[in-house]
């Protein structure tokens, strides 16, 4: 049927269709147009600061698994329809960690610490919580997070961040300065067990009638507070916090009360750097009991990504832009470490050296 060479216009028209589609795809994927911050960008920024530690989380690399249970009091039942907050006991898998991307960092240098939880409901629904021991976060957006990581990148020659870069960053980000002031002033808990862990971001509880309630939450410890001497942090044993946790659990289970704080109209739900004023309605939603800790090698937490956007029906995302960013960054970190052989954890290594 084909008789002659088709005219150029026909060839151009035929080529236009796939070229248009390809251009659209390239635009959708961010390969053309202004540079985008994706989960991979955040993971890259973390790697470039801490170094690449294959097989480990790109943030909160040093951690230990634990198991326990959550006894929901039913106190938050009126705010959320999730069965996980209805009166009852739910299994918990979790992880304590210190901040940063170095799996064998010394605890005295890593003052930032976190508790991550996975609650499993009666119907199999899963709720993941990734909480930090500071009520506010240093940045409000993924852009600021990446900028902060870049400003804090250690200079290879000195091993320290460039003070000029940090100064320039802080000039643009007073919220990070406010966070640093808070960290400097607040006493530093001397144990994972007596730290309060905050949701960082706001979430929405959806009640049985479908109404949304903006909330934050915190897990407040039963253990008595004790503070670390900030002047002596450098002399703290490398795995101090982890050793302390093991010793405490050997004496008995540890408990936290889950306190849900309900926002008042006008409270910011889209900015994790801004604390809510005192005097907000507080609801005791239940008690977390941690029964035992296990090194990541044998524990159940290592291969879980504690993505705080994995929520049961009845709990929903707020407009906080950090939530999607955490989800994207954790997914990128998980994707990377999953194909790298997992290495030993600090706790597991110490135990195996002791001959367990």
């Amino acid at each position: 049927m084909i008789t002659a060479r088709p005219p150029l216009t026909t060839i151009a028209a035929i080529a236009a269709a796939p070229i248009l589609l390809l251009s659209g795809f390239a635009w959708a994927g961010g390969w053309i147009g202004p540079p985008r911050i994706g989960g991979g960008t955040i993971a890259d920024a973390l790697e470039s600061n801490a170094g690449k530690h294959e097989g480990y989380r790109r943030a909160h690399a040093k951690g230990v698994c634990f198991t326990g249970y959550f006894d929901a009091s039913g106190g938050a039942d009126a705010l959320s329809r999730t069965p996980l907050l209805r009166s009852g006991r739910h299994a918990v898998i979790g992880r304590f960690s210190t901040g940063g991307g170095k799996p064998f960092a010394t605890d005295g240098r890593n003052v930032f610490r976190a508790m991550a939880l996975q609650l499993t409901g009666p119907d199999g629904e899963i709720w993941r919580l990734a909480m930090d021991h500071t009520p506010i976060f240093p940045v409000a957006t993924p852009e600021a997070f990446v900028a902060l990581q870049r400003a804090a990148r250690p200079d290879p020659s000195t091993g320290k961040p460039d003070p000029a870069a940090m100064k320039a960053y802080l000039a643009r980000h007073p919220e990070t300065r406010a966070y640093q002031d808070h960290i400097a002033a607040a006493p530093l808990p001397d144990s994972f067990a007596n730290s309060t862990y905050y949701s960082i971001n706001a979430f929405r509880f959806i009640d049985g009638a479908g109404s949304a309630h903006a909330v934050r939450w915190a897990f407040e410890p039963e253990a008595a507070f004790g503070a670390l001497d900030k002047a002596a942090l450098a002399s703290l044993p490398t795995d101090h916090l982890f050793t302390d946790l093991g010793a405490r659990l050997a004496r008995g289970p540890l408990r936290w009360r889950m306190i849900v704080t309900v926002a008042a109209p006008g409270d910011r739900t889209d900015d994790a750097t801004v604390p809510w004023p005192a005097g907000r309605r507080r609801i005791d939603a239940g008690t977390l009991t941690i029964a035992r800790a296990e090194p990541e090698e044998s524990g159940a937490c290592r291969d879980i990504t504690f993505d705080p956007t994995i929520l049961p029906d009845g709990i929903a995302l707020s407009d906080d832009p950090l939530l999607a960013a955490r989800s994207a960054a954790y997914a990128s970190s998980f994707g990377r470490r999953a194909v790298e052989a997992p290495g030993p954890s600090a706790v597991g290594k110490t135990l195996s050296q002791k001959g367990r």
Partner: protein
Amino acid sequence: MPHRFPLAIRLLHWTMALLIIAMLFIGAAMVSTASPAYASLIALHRPLGIAILLLAALRLVLRFATGAPPLPADLPRVQQRAARGAHILLYLAMIGLPLIGWAMLSAGGYPVRLTAGFVLPPIVPRDALAYGLLRQTHGLIAFAFFALILGHLTVALIHRFVRRDGVLETMGFARAAALDPELAEPEEADEPEVEPAETPGP
């Protein structure tokens, strides 16, 4: 010999074409961003993927049951074989890509949440390495699928505008008489045309 695919297949083809292109764009976009769009896109990606899987399964059954119109007899054998291979690959991608996505989330311990309160069960056991490999495979196949679709589209247009052999029309909705573009002109001239301005009044 049928001149074109049955109506159900044609409707499925074009519906799925839109869904799959949208899906590939959503997939590329969601990996590129950590903005709030990431959460929205991923929430769309999962149910859309399962919808494509169901439609593809239905289409495969229909396709086996009804067959396909023959390719033009003058099409060289190597091209006939290439067409057959490409279509097998397209079906494999339509069914395989959502299944790999589902398996990947299962292996990674992510709930496959379609809508509020509706979570699909895992289809493979938890395994981090499997998650990582499936995730890479999911991405690679998605790119290959997109390349295949671009090729499919280009070849369809060549059939329509260069060879003019009626192959694209087998997936079209034109009336049967208009299937052959050579015949279309005179056929259309026979259609009653409304020309009120030029029709003199009685």
